[in-house]
């Protein structure tokens, strides 16, 4: 081969290697960057006044004076919105309007009574069913004023009280129609059929108008209720009474984070979901922009007010919430931190090490120093190799079926059962890495030790183990990282989705939340998964940090020990 060809080959290989490494780095960055950026957002973020209220009221942290100042400002801004809402709910002129409508109704029936003779004449002239449209027309005439008032009121205001009032009006109209029959009866006796026709047809036009009005009012009210619900989600309960009545913590406080608050504003306040009937008559719900759909109504005004005062209402402020790592979660991780999960992961990992490390080291010493190449040893080696290839979910099932159901190490899931399962999972890795580490100890060390009159065991303890220590520790610590991140084995044996941090004394009987399982849980099973992205990312970052930390500890420890050994 020519020199130039060789050079080109060498260079192209270097280029290939470099580019593949570059791709790897890029992949790592693309993977880690969002986790680090979003995950750190769980600790360092723009908090709203609600966050400080939560800290003060639930965790008894933070300055009460500062909070009071913030609350004052935000309450002043909220009052603008709340006053609009209150005005909508109980309009000042409601009494006047409702009174006018009621008296118009009474006047209409009085007029009908007055025109009894005229009415009976109509009945006489139109026999049977032919009288129905005529009666209706007659009714429309006398209820014209009344209907005008109802339509006007429905257009102007559609508070819940109005809806109730209109429902009452429906009954009043029917009662009135029954009452007016007696006035007609004074002129001549009416047949049963006639009575029924009059009762139905006299207020028919007014009822139709009333129905349209109340449908509009109830539609408006549903939209307002959705809007109000959105405002509650954003700002928390409107009154102290609402707050005390709220059962779940998410109903006691508004949004604690500015980013989520902005999302809620956009999705549940400025836009609301309304029910509509499509062409085929099916009920569907669609998300509509309040400002467009309810243009010119009080609701649009409220939405505008909420948008304009948003920042003032939330009082955002950059904050460093270290409690994310050290606080318990509240209301399924919507508030508070992830301390129980971190602690659970710590328990499980350390527990797994307590079982796996001694066993693994002893087994590795046996394989490397004592075992001769016989059938039994080969079989044992094969077992270890097979164990390393078993899927982790199978270990989880084994833990449930054997440790919990058969051996009964605990009543149900417990840290102990989870630790043993994890230990079994990482045992093959530990045995392998420790054996490799022992094999790298030069034979000359063994010879030297034995040549100086050390027994085998003494040689192992005094020379071989210290020399193999860096490699063994590396293997063990990296296995720890694996144990910390395993999910499948703990699903059946140790993990619960919720729960408080457990005391050290309870590890034998209690299940614990743990990072890997809870990450799955709050990402896929949580009802508000899209509102707690920061917690999801925060947990992932914490888990990655734990694993990376363990690995770097392994590297540093190995380097230090190796330096010490090399001299």
């Amino acid at each position, binding site marked *: 081969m020519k020199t130039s060809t060789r050079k080109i080959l060498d260079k192209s290989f270097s280029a290939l290697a470099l580019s593949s490494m570059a791709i790897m780095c890029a992949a790592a960055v693309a993977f880690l960057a969002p986790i680090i950026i979003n995950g750190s957002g769980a600790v360092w973020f723009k908090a709203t006044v609600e966050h400080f209220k939560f800290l003060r009221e639930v965790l008894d942290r933070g300055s009460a004076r500062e909070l009071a100042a913030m609350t004052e400002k935000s309450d002043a801004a909220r009052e603008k919105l709340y006053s609009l809402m209150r005005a909508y709910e109980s309009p000042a002129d409601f009494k006047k309007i409702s009174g006018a409508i009621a008296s118009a109704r009474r006047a209409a029936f009085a007029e009908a009574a007055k025109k009894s003779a005229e009415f009976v004449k109509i009945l006489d002239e139109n026999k049977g069913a032919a009288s129905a449209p005529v009666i209706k027309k007659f009714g429309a005439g006398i209820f014209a004023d009344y209907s005008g008032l109802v339509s006007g009121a429905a257009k102007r205001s559609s508070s819940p009280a109005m809806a109730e009032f209109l429902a009452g009006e429906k009954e009043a109209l029917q009662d009135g129609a029954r009452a007016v029959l007696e006035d007609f009866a004074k002129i001549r006796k009416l047949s049963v059929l006639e009575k029924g026709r009059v009762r139905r047809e006299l207020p028919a036009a007014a009822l139709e108008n009333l129905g349209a009005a109340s449908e509009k009012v109830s539609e408006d009210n549903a939209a307002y209720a959705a809007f109000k619900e959105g405002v509650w989600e954003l700002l928390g309960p409107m009154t102290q009474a609402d707050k005390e009545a709220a059962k779940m913590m998410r109903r006691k406080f508004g949004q604690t984070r500015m980013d989520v608050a902005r999302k809620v504003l956009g999705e549940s306040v400025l836009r609301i979901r309304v029910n509509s009937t499509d062409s085929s008559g099916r009920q569907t719900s669609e998300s509509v922009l309040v400002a467009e759909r309810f243009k010119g109504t009080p609701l649009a005004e409220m939405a505008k007010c909420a948008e304009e005062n948003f920042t003032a209402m939330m009082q955002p402020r950059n904050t460093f919430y270290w409690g994310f790592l050290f606080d318990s979660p509240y209301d399924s991780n919507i508030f508070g931190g992830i301390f129980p999960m971190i602690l659970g992961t710590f328990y499980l990992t350390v527990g797994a090490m307590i079982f796996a490390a001694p066993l693994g080291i002893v087994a590795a010493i046996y394989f490397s120093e004592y075992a*001769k*190449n016989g059938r039994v040893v080969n079989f044992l080696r094969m077992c270890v190799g097979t164990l390393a290839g078993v899927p982790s979910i199978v270990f989880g099932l084994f833990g449930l079926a054997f440790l919990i159901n058969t051996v009964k190490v605990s009543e149900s899931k417990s840290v102990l059962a989870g630790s043993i399962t994890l230990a079994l999972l990482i045992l093959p890795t530990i045995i392998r890495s420790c054996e490799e580490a022992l094999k790298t100890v*030069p034979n*000359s*060390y*063994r*010879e*030297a*030790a*034995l*040549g*100086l*009159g*050390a*027994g085998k065991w*003494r040689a192992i303890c*005094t*020379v071989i183990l*210290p*020399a193999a220590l860096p490699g063994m520790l590396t293997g063990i610590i990296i296995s720890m990282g694996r144990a910390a991140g395993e999910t499948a084995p703990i699903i059946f044996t140790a993990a619960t989705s919720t729960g408080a941090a457990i005391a050290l004394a309870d590890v034998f009987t209690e299940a614990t939340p743990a990072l890997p399982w809870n990450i799955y849980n709050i990402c896929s099973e949580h009802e508000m998964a899209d509102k707690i992205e920061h917690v999801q990312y925060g947990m992932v970052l914490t888990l990655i940090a734990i694993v990376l930390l363990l690995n770097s500890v392994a590297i540093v420890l190995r380097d230090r020990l190796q330096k*010490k*050994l*090399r*001299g």
Partner: protein
Amino acid sequence: MTETKTQNGGAAKSAPDAGDIAVVAENFSIYYDYGKFHAVKGVSMGLRRGKVTAIIGPSGCGKSTFLRCINRMNDLVDGCTTSGLLALDGVDIYHPRLDVVELRRRIGMVFQRPNPFPKSIYDNVAYGPRLAGGVGRAELDEIVETSLRRAALWDEVKDRLSNNALGMSGGQQQRLCIARALAMRPEVLLMDEPCSALDPKSTSRIEDLIDELSGEYTIAIVTHNMQQAARVSDYTAFFYEGHLVEFGQTKQMFTNPQMKQTNDYITGRFG
């Protein structure tokens, strides 16, 4: 040990010049691979007390194997078996009830490559005595110092006894290994090509050292270097293809070899 000694009294008597000879081999054979390979074939020779015996021969002739059998280092090799007699002071080295650990304390060994432990210089030398136990701190200090002086290393390392031994030069490391062996106060010192990994200057220091140690210790040294054998040894054994071809005083062997093979080897015709 005493018990074993009486049991094997007969063996001791059968060795020639028992008083003068520390280690005796009689028709001693070594097999590898569970008897499939006959590495050393019926060797009969003796290591004279206080003398240096060189074992020479071409590669693969069994000289190292023989040396390593003297303190039973070959026990580490799977499938290595022996027959015949090998005795230290009249005690059968391969007696099944012999305490190997005790044997190795009496027969020190220095290996081809310097193999100090990755510990401090002090700990390296103190390793053997500490294993034996029953030594106080002051006594241990004294043992370390004497051994290092013996190995002509004391002046170079006395100020850095706590440094890691792997930081020393190759020659120093090998002398440390000798000091480490001497700290056990062995009766016999086996050296398996102790200078093959060293530069000429370090080699000559080791050779001087062997010279100084002779008289006090029974030394067996395996070497590829004929000049070295001629320089340091009192007796020489020539191994060829597992057989002991010739064994005698070094001076006589190098001036007037009895066997043709010895002559060929010494004069460099082969090997």
